[in-house]
């Protein structure tokens, strides 16, 4: 069994016991424990079940590479599935639940899958659920969905907060082990800005566990001194609990800092996502031990040799009373020695190499451990826990030589440098056959904006697995001058790559050799994929799901591709690795979202009158990032009733609209008129000072992109109104043409949208209201239709435009935004007995639709040209050029069959559904029905007491009076084509 040792544990604080639960069972650990260490200390070796076969899964590793020990952690709004027990720090009252097991971890129904394992090989889903086709949607997928996913998604909104931060540095060092600290010292002493990020809560990495001495001191002591030196330097920043997740173009780095994972409930951001720009990155990310592929290597109690050592040394946790070591290298002997030091039993070391005669094996022998050379494990015996191993000759086919009783197996298949941060931005790897590993190739490092390499690996990540080489390389990577720190450790004899144990294992054994522990991919699955013709490692990965689990194959990929290479009869570098993609380890969605949630999920733009609308019950409509009042329902009123009231009141009395969101761009200069003539389809250079003109703007490919009223403020100055959504876009469009095409034209623009609050004052009583406000002559003579005046109204500086988007007598008044609310209130007060009433965007739409006015985004959709909308009157025939003119001459644009704007009225007076299509006889090449028209705007008109609509219909204007059918679901609605102006065709009301 696994248990807490009476003494030792360099990372735990025995004076701070912590209570926690696992599947409801109350357990105890210490501050400094990881969840995994605390679980092992309580003999909880089995943590979860695997994804596919629901096999029992134990703790395999002690770090970020762990594929098995994922738990659901926390409760209610702080529950999160798939938390890696090996990297999550224990905290008081941590509540863990096992995953992938029902009804319980020990009694799991899904485990029946393992009985059918031989029927669930690689590609099972692809092969089985193909036919009959209809069954996927109705039968297979619903069933498969039930068993998909690991863990339970939280049911409540996340109670934690998250944030992001930017940082900049000359040198970013990923990893705070002895290599990272050596590189940091070297770089910092050179005067560079240095940022060191360590993913765990502890500095020093593996060296203190491995018993390395540096400059004659124990590693812990050297690390403490190095940290003191670095902390004293103003150009160095050290951050713990910060995992570098991704390295991207031009030195961009993403790292996640776990600020408060270990302090749940504290008023702190839980995670902080760092967005860093680094001139150079040194990946001192270490190496990850590989498992060995032998039958039963997934049974709880089998773990990495380095992990077994970590639990003993760091946490004083014994992974088992009797641990058999199985290895192909010298490093695992350190585990044997550490276990012995802790008073535990190592019945044997099985070394796959023919001879093991290095210093470490000899130290083990000297301590009385049986070292069996040329031996391996034929099979692990046990179900939910290791009971024994059957020993075999590595060179043979698995014949049992002896059985050794044990409750733990510590395995080591060698080490793989963590090259992820080097590879993510494009660094290439080289195969080191002697050590059976891919190493970063410095000659093919990723290059940055200057074409120079910007990522280098240092220490074990560079392939320097021996402590001495590790520090020499790290010192050099940091640009160090003078001697590097000197590390000493017993020399290691060469390892011998072992990809399968025993080498001649028959199929029955190969079908029990796990490669990917989380996704249940075995040696036999990869071999099957190869037999079925998968020769690309990327394809094999997806077919077998090898390396596609949440650990992203940190432990399984190299073993898997070695098996694939063997099956394909080619050397490992010919197979290559799959692509390394960020993040290195999962980061939280919260960190990715950062502060962007709730009220600040995205900017909400507010007009100066926004607060008034809110206080007066506005029902909002989002328009771009603004929120505009859709209508103002009164008590007992539905939204529809409110809209009808607002329309009627505006037509009969006086309506007020907050039009502040409309774009207002000033264009000034000697060439401004010429410029606007290019920008608009009509002529703006001839507009007299003091007058307004409606204009259309097209993109260079001819499509209508915006419209609005253009005002000539002065001889060389125009004011261009745009749609609400168009303000920034059109300003950018203007600047684009001015800066990039007509840069010799003398024109300046300024986007003054937010300088002004703008209020539309609409209805028969509009003039009376302005007169009451006082200060400007707004009479019919002084301020005729399509003219403007400047002065003061109600004592506020104002510009008054006599324009109408409703067909009524109408003014739009622009006042400085700081006076907007005051002016709005003045209008309401002065107009109270005139029937002044605010109206919203929906009433605006009804009013404009009754008049047949188009709306950008309703009548246009990026495929509509002004000629389609009967707007030929606003297009100059004389101008030699304007943006979009050439495109509008293309054959498709001049085709008489184009859909064109018409009015539509249903025969029964009902309202046509928005967007519905009118079918035409026949079908297209895909067998779909042909269509001849579409509804673009449709409303109930309270003025006319019936439904009115506009639509685009093939050759529409030639078909006045014709009746066509629109189809909405299973309903057919007949409508008559008519002129789109439903109200006051002659425009008498707006001209009073």
């Amino acid at each position, binding site marked *: 069994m696994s248990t807490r040792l009476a003494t030792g544990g360099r990372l735990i604080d025995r004076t701070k016991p912590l209570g926690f639960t696992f599947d409801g069972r109350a357990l105890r650990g210490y501050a400094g424990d990881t969840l995994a260490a605390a679980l092992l200390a309580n003999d909880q070796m089995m943590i979860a079940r695997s994804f596919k076969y629901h096999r029992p899964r134990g703790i395999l590793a002690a770090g970020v590479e762990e594929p098995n020990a994922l738990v659901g952690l926390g409760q209610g709004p702080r529950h999160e599935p798939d938390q890696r027990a090996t990297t999550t720090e224990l905290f008081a009252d941590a509540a863990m639940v096992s995953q992938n097991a029902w009804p319980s971890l020990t009694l799991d129904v899904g485990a029946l899958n393992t009985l059918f394992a031989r029927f669930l090989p690689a590609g099972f889903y692809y092969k089985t659920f193909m036919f009959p086709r209809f069954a996927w949607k109705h039968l297979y997928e619903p069933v498969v969905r039930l068993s998909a996913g690991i863990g339970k998604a939280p049911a409540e909104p996340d109670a934690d907060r998250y944030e992001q931060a930017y940082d900049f540095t000359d040198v970013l060092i990923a990893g705070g082990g002895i290599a990272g600290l050596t590189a940091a010292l070297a770089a910092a002493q050179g005067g560079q800005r240095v940022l060191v990020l360590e993913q765990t809560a502890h500095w020093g990495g593996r060296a203190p566990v491995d018993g390395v001495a540096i400059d004659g001191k124990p590693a812990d002591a050297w690390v403490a001194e190095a940290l003191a030196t670095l902390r004293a330097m103003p150009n160095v920043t050290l951050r713990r609990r910060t995992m570098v997740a991704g390295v*991207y*173009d*031009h*030195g*961009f780095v993403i790292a996640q800092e776990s600020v408060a994972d270990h302090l749940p409930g504290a008023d702190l951001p839980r995670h902080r996502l760092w967005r860093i*720009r680094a001139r150079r990155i040194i990946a001192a990310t270490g190496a990850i031990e590989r498992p060995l592929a032998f039958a039963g290597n997934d049974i709880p109690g089998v773990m990495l040799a380095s992990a077994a050592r970590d639990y003993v040394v760091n946490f004083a946790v014994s992974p088992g009373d009797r641990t058999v070591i199985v290895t192909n290298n010298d490093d695992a002997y350190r585990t044997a020695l550490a276990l012995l030091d802790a008073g535990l039993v190592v019945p044997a070391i099985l070394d796959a190499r023919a001879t093991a005669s290095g210093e470490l094996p000899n130290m083990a022998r000297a301590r009385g451990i049986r070292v069996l050379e040329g031996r391996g494990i034929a099979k692990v015996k046990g179900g939910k826990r290791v009971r024994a191993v059957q020993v075999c000759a590595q060179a043979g086919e698995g014949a049992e030589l002896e059985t050794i009783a044990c409750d733990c197996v510590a395995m080591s298949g060698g080490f793989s440098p963590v090259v992820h941060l080097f590879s993510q931005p*494009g660094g290439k790897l080289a195969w080191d056959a002697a050590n059976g590993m891919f190493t970063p190739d410095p000659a093919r490092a990723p*290059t*940055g*904006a*200057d*074409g120079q390499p910007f990522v280098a690996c240092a220490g074990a990540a560079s392939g320097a697995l021996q402590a001495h080489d590790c520090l020499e390389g790290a010192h050099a990577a940091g640009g160090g001058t003078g001697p590097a720190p000197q590390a000493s450790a017993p020399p290691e004899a060469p390892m011998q790559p072992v990809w399968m144990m025993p080498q001649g294992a028959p199929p029955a054994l190969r079908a029990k050799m796990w490669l990917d522990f989380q996704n249940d991919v075995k040696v036999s699955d990869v071999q099957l994929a190869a037999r079925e013709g998968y020769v690309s490692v990327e394809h094999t990965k997806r077919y077998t799901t090898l390396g596609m689990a949440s650990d992203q194959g940190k432990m399984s990929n190299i073993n898997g591709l070695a098996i694939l290479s063997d099956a394909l009869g080619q050397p490992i570098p010919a197979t290559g690795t799959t692509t390394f993609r960020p993040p290195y380890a999962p980061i939280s969605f919260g960190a990715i979202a950062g502060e962007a949630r709730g009220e600040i999920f995205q900017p909400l733009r507010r007009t100066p009158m926004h607060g008034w609308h809110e206080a007066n019950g506005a029902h909002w409509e989002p328009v771009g990032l603004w929120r505009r009042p859709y209508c103002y329902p009164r008590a007992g009123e539905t939204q529809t009733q409110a809209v009808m009231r607002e329309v009627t009141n505006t037509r009969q009395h006086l309506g007020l609209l907050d039009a502040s969101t409309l774009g207002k761009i000033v264009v000034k200069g000697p060439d401004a008129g010429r410029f606007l003539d290019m920008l608009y389809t009509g002529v703006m250079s001839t507009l007299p000072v003091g007058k307004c003109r409606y204009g259309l703007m097209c993109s*260079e*490919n001819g499509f209508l992109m915006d419209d609005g009223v253009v005002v000539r403020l002065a001889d060389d100055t125009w004011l261009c109104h745009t749609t609400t959504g168009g303000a920034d876009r059109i300003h*950018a469009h203007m*600047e*684009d043409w001015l*800066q*990039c*095409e007509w*840069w010799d034209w003398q024109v300046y623009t300024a986007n003054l949208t937010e300088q002004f609050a703008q209020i539309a004052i609409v209805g028969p009583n509009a003039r009376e209201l302005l007169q009451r406000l006082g200060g400007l002559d707004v009479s019919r003579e002084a301020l005729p239709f399509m003219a403007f005046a400047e002065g003061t109204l109600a004592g506020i500086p104002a510009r008054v435009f006599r324009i109408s988007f409703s067909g009524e007598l109408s003014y739009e008044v622009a006042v400085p935004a700081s006076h907007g609310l005051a002016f709005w209130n003045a209008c309401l007060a002065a107009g109270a007995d005139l029937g002044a009433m605010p109206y919203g965007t929906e009433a605006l739409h009804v009013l404009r639709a009754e008049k047949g006015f188009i709306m950008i985004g309703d009548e246009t959709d990026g495929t509509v040209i002004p000629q389609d909308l009967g707007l030929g009157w606003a297009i100059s025939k004389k101008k*030699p*050029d304007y943006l979009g*003119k*050439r*495109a509008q*001459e*293309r054959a498709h644009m001049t085709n008489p069959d184009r859909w064109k704007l018409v009015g539509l009225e249903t025969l029964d007076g009902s309202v046509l559904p928005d967007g519905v299509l009118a079918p035409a006889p026949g079908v297209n090449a895909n067998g779909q029905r042909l269509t001849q028209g579409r509804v673009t705007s449709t409303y109930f008109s309270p003025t006319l007491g019936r439904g009115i609509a506009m639509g685009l219909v093939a050759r529409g204007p030639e078909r006045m009076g014709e009746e066509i059918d629109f189809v909405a679901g299973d309903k057919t609605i007949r409508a008559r084509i008519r002129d789109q102006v439903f109200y006051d065709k002659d425009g008498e009301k707006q001209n009073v």
Partner: protein
Amino acid sequence: MLTLTCPYCGIAADETELAPGGQAHLKRFGPGSSDDEFEGYLFARKNPKGVHFERWRHAYGCGKWFLAARCTATLEVFGTYPAQVTEPPPEIIAAIKAKRPDWKGF
């Protein structure tokens, strides 16, 4: 996530401060041009693996459009320059040729 230096204000801008504008040095064809010319201007774009010229706007900065010469394969930036030119300036051409001797030219 590129960093490009705006030639107008000198800021080494983060890509999130920039707005992309597609291929640089397009020649506009307006009324009177042939269908082929107009199609080429409006729709045909280069997509090289290697040296490329692009339009970028320092949208969250000085608001100016500038042009960048960079390698689409390695993301190496050969230089940025103001947009008021019809072809890359000689110093940009020289910088590219120094780094990519095999480059066929603009």
